[in-house]
Structure formats: C-alpha cells, structure tokens
C-alpha cells in the first residue's frame, strides 16, 4: 500500500478564489463587491477582479452578456485575485459556458438551477442541461432553485413576481456568506442606504439575503475553502475524487478483489451521505445498497450481511457512530468482518454538522461497553480515503473483525487528484479456506492471525449458531464459564493487537532522531507536512510521522518516539491521541489542539514548532 501522499508535495492553500458570474442584468458586480467587503470586515486579505462584458447592452442570456466578479481572499497575504476560481457562482447557462474552461476539475459550481431552462440553454449554446447531463461530473455542483426560492421568500412583500425575482442575486450572496461564515451586517447597512428611497426594495433585498443564508444553513451546504494544492505528481491516470467518493470506490474495489458482493447499509447523515450516493450510482447485483430506517438498523444489517458471507460496510458520522456502537459490539463478539467509516464532524451531539474535527478517536477506539477491541485506521487526505478504506477491508476479512475508518468533513468534501491504481498494484484479498465440515468449529482459530473461520448460510455442512452471548473457546457454544470468559476476552484483545503485524515500518519524514518530532494522524497530514517542510527550510531540526493505524499502533512507534527529545502532536480535538500515547508509552507529548470546526493550518503548526524549539 502506498503511504499517504508519498508521491505528492502537499502545501496548503490558505486562500480561496470565488467568481460570481451572470447576466449583466443580474447584479453581479454589486454582489461581488459586497462579498469582497464582507471578507475584508471578517479580517481577510483580499484581491478582486471585476470582469464586465465588452458590450454593455449585449442581449440578455447570451455569452457576450456575461458579467463576472472574481475575488481571492485568505488569511495570508493575497497578492493576486487567483488564476482559477475554486468556487464559481453562476446565475445562468451563459455564465457557466463562459467560465467553465477556467475551472479546475473538482472545483465547486453553485448554479441558479431555475435559469437553466431550454431557451436560456440554447442562447448559451447548450443542447441539453449541463447540470443534469453529466457534463459537470468532475465538479461539485450545487444547484439552487434561487429564482423560485426568492419569489417564495418575497411572496408577501407586495412586490410583483418579476421584481421579486430580481432579488435572487442577494439570495445567492446569502448562501455564499453562510459558506464562508461572513457577517451580514455591513451588506444590510449598505442595502438600507442604497434603497433609502424605496424601503420596500431594501426590505426585499435584505429578506432575500437572509433567506439565502438560512437556506445554506438548513441544507448544510459545505464550504470549499480548504483545498490541497499539489506539486509534481507521479505519472499515471488520474481523476478528481472527494474523500467520500474515494471511500466508496475503495469498498467496491475491495468486494471485487474478494470476489464477493458489497453490502452497504447506511442511514443519511452529514457529512457521510456522499458515500451512500456514490455507491447508489453503482448499484448492481454485486453492489447492494440498503438505506436503512435508522443508524442502528444500518449497522445491524451490516452485521447481518457479514454473517451472510458478503463484504459488509456502513458509513456514518459521530452521532450515528454512537447509535451504532451496540451493534458494533455484536460484530466484535461474533467476529465478523466489516468496515465502518466514520466521517467525523464537530461534536458533541448535533454539534457542527458540516464542520470538521478529529474528536471521535476515543469513541472509535474505546467507546463500547465491555472489553471490546477492534481496529481503527485514519485517512490522511481525500485520495488516501481510498487506500485506507481498502486496507481496512483487507484487514477486516483477514482478521475477522470490524474495522473503523476515521475520515472527517475536511477530507470527505475536499477533493484531490487520485491516481487510479493498476490491478497489479492492489493488495491480495484472501478468505481463509474452511476445514472439512466434520472438523469445523465456529470459534477455532487460525494459529497466526487468531481469526475464526467464516462460514455463511448456504454452505452445506457448516450450519452453526452465533450471537451476542459469550462463546466457548473453539466450539462457539454459549458459555458462562468464568475462566472461558477471561480466555475469550484475552483472545479478542490479542487478535486485534496482532493486526500490528500488518503495519509497515513507520516512515519518518526527516531525520530518524533529534530535537522534535511532529506526530499526526488523519486529516492534519497536509498542514503538518507543509509546516515541517517550511521549518526544515528555515533550518529547524524537526521530523514528522503520520499515522494511518491508530489502533493498534505501529509496533515500532514506541521506540521511534523515544529517539526524539520532544514530540508535538497537533490534533483537531483537545488531545485524544495524546491521551492514548500517554497510556501506551508513558509519553508526554506537547499538544497543539484546535477545536473550532476548522482544520489546523500549516501556519499554526509552524508557529508551534518554532515555539517548541524556542524560536530557533
């Protein structure tokens, strides 16, 4: 398996470029400048580029009539308005047609879908609707019926519908304000002044602005602020994938390599639903997707499908993981293979559903009743969601255990080029052969892995009963024997600890010993790698290690950590891995902890590195 990001140089982009485009009558310059103003008020550095149509009076809806406004903003010094927008807001088809060529694959397109009617499509040269016909398959498209929504918002305003519809630019602006957490106040003040003589219009525009903001909040539209910018990439075939798409394709791939069906049982939850959507697109008699009635049923049907002998998986986010926990325990005691993807978000409870965090680590590793060990892995980047999930499935089947894959909102909705692996590069998947029926015991063990045999309904001669009650070692019969319970508890723990032998030697970025090691896991990979790169360039002696396996930990990690005087552990929680390291290695790591629903960025990590090293 490739290590995360092995062939790529990752540096974090701390700025984002947004382009508003529409007909010259759509008020694009106006909303663009209001957006710019709000980003400045919010403390961003910025640079803008208005782009008026050449012909002031070009016919409405035509390519020549498209007006644009581009702005780059961020927390660094932003010197240019950005070459290519990360987010394109289009009010009509012509605006899309004009601007699409300047978009990188994976960028976000927010479109007023109401404007994509036949007549305006034709004016822009489209024969079918690009929002629906697959033209935009490589972009993240968010269609908003903004004309109708604006009209509905203003139906009691007394404005005639045609005039009410004109407020749709403020509706779209409201959506963008929510996405980037910008304040509405300055724009509202501006509207009041601008429409001083027509208070009903001022009122309508403010209402549209607020309604758009609320729409984005309730429909949980994601921001597209955080992108990883790639350096030179390895030769091969690429496509853009989000973390959720990558995880979904990994599950399909794992099932194919196993020559089994994939069963995916899931319940909709932000930000994991894209896995469900992606797999639903590939439904076949080999990819069985089941939208269950709740998180519990999603998990239980996954356990059932694993018992049924197929590759079973589910995906969820924090609150859903909490609901699944009891049934995950059933998966542990019945020792069935399954993959559970947890796309972490800000918690506790409903918390920050669209925002990112790394705060489910302890729930994943320890959060079950009884002694209930399983394997926990974490993906480092959107494309790494593929490799990590695929490896999780391989381990699940080889060791007959549930495996939790930790992703998060940052990875799941961020995208990056994914190098499509060749069949020959993919790992081997094996199901241990069953003994003859006469020798079959449901809880016998493979001497090396301690995995029990997997026999599923339909196989003649292997009929057996399993369940949540403690099993007798070997026979699998119900056992209340005190000694047996301790034996089984220890075997389950030993089996999971043994998964450590699957972990390749830990790769150290930089020297193998020294002053400072920055240790990370999961989605902080880009920020840490980039910060360490900068720190070393500045002459600081610092190395980094990034963990894919968080439980069990790599067997060489304890010794490796001791070779550094200090260990810095950046996490998007209050120090969950730090707690584990302390208990495992009696190691006092220095935490860099951010719990704001926002990813750690490289500047923050770099500043902490400098602080820890005493400004050297």
């Amino acid at each position, binding site marked *: 398996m490739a290590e995360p990001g092995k062939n790529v140089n990752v540096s974090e982009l701390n700025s984002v470029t947004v382009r508003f485009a529409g007909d010259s009558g759509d008020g694009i310059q106006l909303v663009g400048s209001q957006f710019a103003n709000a980003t400045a008020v919010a403390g961003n550095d910025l640079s803008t580029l208005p782009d008026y149509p050449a012909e002031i009076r070009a016919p409405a809806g035509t390519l020549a009539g498209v007006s644009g406004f581009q702005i780059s903003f961020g927390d660094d010094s932003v010197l240019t308005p950005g070459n290519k927008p990360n987010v394109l807001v289009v009010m009509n088809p012509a605006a899309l047609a004009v601007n699409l060529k300047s978009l990188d*694959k994976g960028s976000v397109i927010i479109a007023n879908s109401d404007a994509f009617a036949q007549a305006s499509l034709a004016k822009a040269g489209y024969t079918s609707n690009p929002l629906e016909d*697959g033209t935009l*398959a*490589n972009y993240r498209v968010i269609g908003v019926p903004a004309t109708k929504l604006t009209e509905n918002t203003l139906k009691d305003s007394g404005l005639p519908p045609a005039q009410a519809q004109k407020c749709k630019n403020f509706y779209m602006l409201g959506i963008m304000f929510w996405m980037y957490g910008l304040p509405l106040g300055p724009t509202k003040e501006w509207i009041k002044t601008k429409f001083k003589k027509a208070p009903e219009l001022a009122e309508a525009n403010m209402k549209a602005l607020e309604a758009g903001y609320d729409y984005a909040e309730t429909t949980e539209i994601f921001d597209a602020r955080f992108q990883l910018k790639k350096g030179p*990439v*390895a*030769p*091969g*075939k*690429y*496509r853009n994938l989000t973390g959720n798409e990558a995880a979904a*394709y990994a599950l*399909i*791939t794992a099932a*194919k*390599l196993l020559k089994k069906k994939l*069963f995916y049982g899931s319940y909709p939850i932000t930000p994991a639903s894209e896995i469900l959507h992606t797999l639903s697109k*590939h*439904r*076949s*008699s*080999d990819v*069985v997707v089941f939208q*269950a*009635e*709740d998180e*519990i*049923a999603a998990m*239980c*049907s996954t*356990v*059932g*499908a*694993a*018992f*049924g*002998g*197929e590759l079973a998986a589910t995906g969820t986010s924090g609150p859903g993981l909490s609901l699944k926990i*009891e*049934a995950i325990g059933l998966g542990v005691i019945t020792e069935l293979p399954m993959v559970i993807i947890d796309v972490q978000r800000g918690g506790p409870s409903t918390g920050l559903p669209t925002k990112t965090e790394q705060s489910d680590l302890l729930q994943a590793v320890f959060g079950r009743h009884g002694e209930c060990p399983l394997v926990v892995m974490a993906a480092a980047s959107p494309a790494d969601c593929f490799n990590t999930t695929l490896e999780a499935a391989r381990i699940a089947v080889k060791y007959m255990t549930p495996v939790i894959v930790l992703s998060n909102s940052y990875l799941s909705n961020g995208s990056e080029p994914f190098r*499509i*692996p*060749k*069949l020959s590069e*993919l790992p081997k998947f094996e199901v241990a052969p069953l003994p003859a029926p006469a020798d079959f015991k449901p809880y016998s063990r493979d001497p090396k892995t301690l995995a029990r045999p997997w026999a*599923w*309904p*339909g*196989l*003649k*001669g*292997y*009929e*057996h*009963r*399993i*369940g*949540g*009650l403690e099993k007798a070692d070997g026979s699998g019969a*119900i056992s209340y024997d005190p000694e047996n319970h301790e034996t089984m508890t220890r075997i389950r723990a030993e089996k999971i600890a043994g998964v450590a032998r699957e972990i390749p030697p830990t790769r150290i970025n930089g020297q193998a010993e020294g002053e400072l090691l920055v240790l990370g896991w999961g989605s902080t990979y880009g920020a840490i790698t980039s910060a360490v790169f900068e720190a070393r360039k500045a002459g600081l002696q610092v190395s980094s290690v990034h963990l894919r396996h968080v439980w069990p930990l790599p067997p060489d990690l304890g010794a490796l950590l001791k070779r550094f005087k200090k260990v810095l552990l950046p996490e998007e929680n209050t120090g969950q891995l730090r707690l584990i390291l302390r208990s495992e290695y009696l190691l006092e790591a220095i935490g860099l902890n951010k719990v704001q629903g926002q990813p750690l960025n490289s500047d923050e990590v770099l500043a902490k590195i400098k602080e820890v090293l005493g400004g050297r």
Partner: protein
Amino acid sequence: MEMEPVKLTAKDFASGLPVKWCPGCGDFAILNMMQKVFAGMGLPHEKYAVISGIGCSSRFPYYVNTYGFHSIHGRAAAVASGVKLANPDLAVWVITGDGDGLSIGGNHMMHAIRRNIGLKIVLFNNRIYALTKGQASPTTQPGTKTKSTPAGSIDYPFNPARFAVGLDCTFVARGLDNDLPGTTAILERAAKHNGTTFVEIFQKCVPFSDKEFDPLKNPETREDVILRVEHGKPLVFGKNRDKGIVFKGFKPSVVSFEPGRVPAEVAVYDETNAEMAYLLSGFTQPELPVPFGVFLSTSKPSFEELYYGQVKDVAHTREHELEALLAGPDAWEVK
C-alpha cells in the same frame, strides 16, 4: 431455486442442544411446530437462517439445526434484512417477542413490514418481559400487576396483529401455542408466502403470565370465545357453531342462530381484504370472540425482488474492469 426437494423430518431440525425454557413454557410447542414446518418445505438445513433478538423466545435459533444468529435486543429484523439482501435465496426467519419486537425493536419491525422484505417474522406474545423477570411489556393488558406496575399497568397495549395489518403487511396471522394443527397450518402458509409475513402466537409464560390465555384454551369453554377464521367461510363460532359475526356498517356484532342454519347476514371472510382484516384483528373479549387464523394475505413484489429486478440490467464490473470503473468517464493521464 430449482432443486430437488430434500426429504427431512422435524427431528432433523433439532440442534441437539438442551432446550432451556421453563417447564411448561409455550415456546416448546412453537419449536416443535417450526421444526415440522421447516422439514416440510423441502429445503436443506443450510438454506435456513434463523435470526432472533433478545428474550426467552430469542433463544430459539440455538435449538434448530440451521444457520442461526442470536443478535441483540430488538434488532433481529434489521440483522435479518442484511442477511436476506446479501443472499435472497435463503429462507430467513425472524424470531422475536412482544418486548423485543414491538418495544425496543418497534422501528425495525415497522420498516421491515413496510418494505415487504422476505422475512418470516414470528412474534411470541406472552404479554410480559419474562427474561428480565416480569415487567410490563407493550402487550401487557391494562390493569395487569407486574413488578414494574404494582398498581396495575396504565399503558394502552399494542394489538400486534392489528399493528401489522395497519402497516399493510402482506401476510398477517395469529396462532395459539397449544393449537398445534391451526398454528402449524399458519406457519406453513407463512413459509411459502412471498414478502414479509407476520405471525403472532399467543404464548404462555409459566412464571409470569401463566393464566393469561386460559380462557382461550379451556376445552370446555374456549369455542365460545375464539373465532377460527377461514378464507371464504362465514365467520361462525361457538361450541355448537351457533354464533356468527355480522357487520352493520363498520360495526361488528354477534348474532346467534340454530346450528347449521347460518343466516346470510353473517360475514364471509375475505383474507385479501385489508379493511376486513383491520376490523377482525381488533376483536376482543368480552364483546367479540378472539380471532385466530390468517387475517390478511395479499400479494405485492418483495423488496428483494424489486431491488434485484431494478439492477438486473446493470452490467457487473468484473475484477479486470476495476481500472475502468475507477477511472470513470473523465480520467486524465499524467506522463
């Protein structure tokens, strides 16, 4: 499934494990009936998956010689849905109780029925939590004194069969643990039905609800308080078969008549009529006899048929085509 029917006996479906229900428990009778029904289906052992939740009844899978899964409280239908979708060729039976299936597992029960997924659900209704030693369950009758309701239960109970009828379950029936011919016939029909089947079986719990169904079982008096429902037959009951059910508007009532001279106004039962099933399943003592038999049997495609039907024209991706699948339509090459 085109294969030779396998000849097996009820004994072949005994797992050989000692059965650990209390002496006199109604579950023994149900186990015997089920083993007989399994043997009569012509399917080999390995084609059965028997899935249960938690409770006395949920010990059931250990006692049948098939694949079995004793899962967690309330979740049998959800686990079984995964088994059935993974392998629709299996005969998947769900064994549950009134607490397991209607309280903690009510949501899964409701949605399994809604989907018409091919699960054969058997709900053992003893109107009590027995494994946890006698608390009121969602079918405990009002006023019943239990450990958790010392002054008498104030919860309005579920009527399980009516619950299933209300959900448009395609097969709903009620049996009684000591009525071997009647209940066996119901289970045989359930076994052959396409889609979700819901069979409620009144079942005696010796320690906690011993007398619960006595009036329905006393050979001297029972025929006057129970109604054996048969499709296409008039709703007639009584020791002397001298009473019948008449619907005036939507209101059922009992009429008496000379034995053998059933008046035309006595309703003829139609098990394909969900409205009639709704009225019938609500019959309770003392006004009306307690009905047993198949209340509802209708036909619509099962969830698994719809699922696999919907995807049957989707080309499978074979292993060597993985690269193309992963590339999608828009991959680009970096040299």
